[in-house]
């Protein structure tokens, strides 16, 4: 893929981390970028009492999983394309397979399945940390190169091919 054109190996992680974690909503919920490899991104979200689905339930609100998946999926597009041009979510569908335990962090694993000049298709699983089976799975479609300024990332070299 074109993304690896001569930049240091850890540059995508640094750029994704700096970019992904400076988004106000992601920062508000406490999302962290754990890993970026080729077309994949892993993010983590620590549990908090205010993320719960109900005062009587020991379950994280599905909407928190939705936000985490949307964020990870968007970063997977950047990871796959190797550039931080603006994108927009066209649609995102989540299936909530089982409740997410309130005492475990959430891990999102997003992978860009296919990239064209105009669109990106992404798949994302959300897991409770320490568990094998995903608690949710989602599919997103993004529009690429939408209007708006190019995102600025500190230390991002000009590595256009």
């Amino acid at each position, binding site marked *: 893929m074109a993304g690896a054109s001569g930049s240091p190996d850890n540059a995508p992680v640094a750029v994704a981390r700096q970019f992904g974690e*400076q*988004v*106000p*909503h*992601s*920062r*508000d919920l406490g999302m962290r970028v754990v890993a970026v490899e080729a077309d994949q991104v892993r993010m983590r979200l620590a549990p908090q*009492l*205010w*993320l*719960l*689905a*109900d*005062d*009587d*339930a*020991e*379950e994280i*609100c*599905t*909407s*928190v999983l*939705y*936000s*985490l*998946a*949307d*964020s990870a999926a*968007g970063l997977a597009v950047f990871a796959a394309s190797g550039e931080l041009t*603006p994108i*927009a*979510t*066209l*649609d*995102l*569908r*989540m*299936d*909530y397979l*089982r*409740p997410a*335990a309130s005492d475990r962090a959430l891990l999102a694993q997003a992978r860009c399945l296919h990239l064209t000049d105009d669109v990106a298709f992404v798949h994302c699983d959300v897991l409770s940390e320490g*568990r*094998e*089976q995903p608690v949710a799975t989602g599919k997103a479609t993004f529009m690429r190169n939408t209007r*708006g*300024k190019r*995102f600025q990332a500190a230390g991002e070299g000009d590595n256009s091919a």
Partner: protein
Amino acid sequence: MSGTTPGQSMPLEYGTDTNTRAAWRTLLARIPYARHLGLEIGQHRTGIELHLPYREALIGNIMLPALHGGVLGALIEITARVAAQSQDAAGRRPRILDCDIDYLRSARAQSTFASAEIVRQGRRTSLVQVTCRQVGTRAPIARGRVQLLFGAPVDNQEIDNDA
């Protein structure tokens, strides 16, 4: 709020009923994440709706700026849940099975309103269509479809025993 929100969608017919408003408020108040987001009960000409007041912490794209897609996801899911639960005779808390959202236009950095239409309310499931609007834009900014399941309460044992 201003009365400019167009009533093109089919809001809940019982929406202006004061009992319904009270029920929505009670249901909303018990959701920690809804409290964190600052969701409120709103009212437009033809029905009840949820209001998400703007805050900087809701931004997902700092360049445009635009609200985070997940913020609209929460607004849609929580509106669907409150609508479905308020319609259940036993007041059972439904479990959200899936949620499918189409983003129709950029969500600007301002207040957002969501109205629900119950497509089908069954004994075990509810299908709710939610439409999100912002003042100044006639067309919806996002539309979501949420499938919910009523059943025996999900016990936490199931979570712990999950292999």
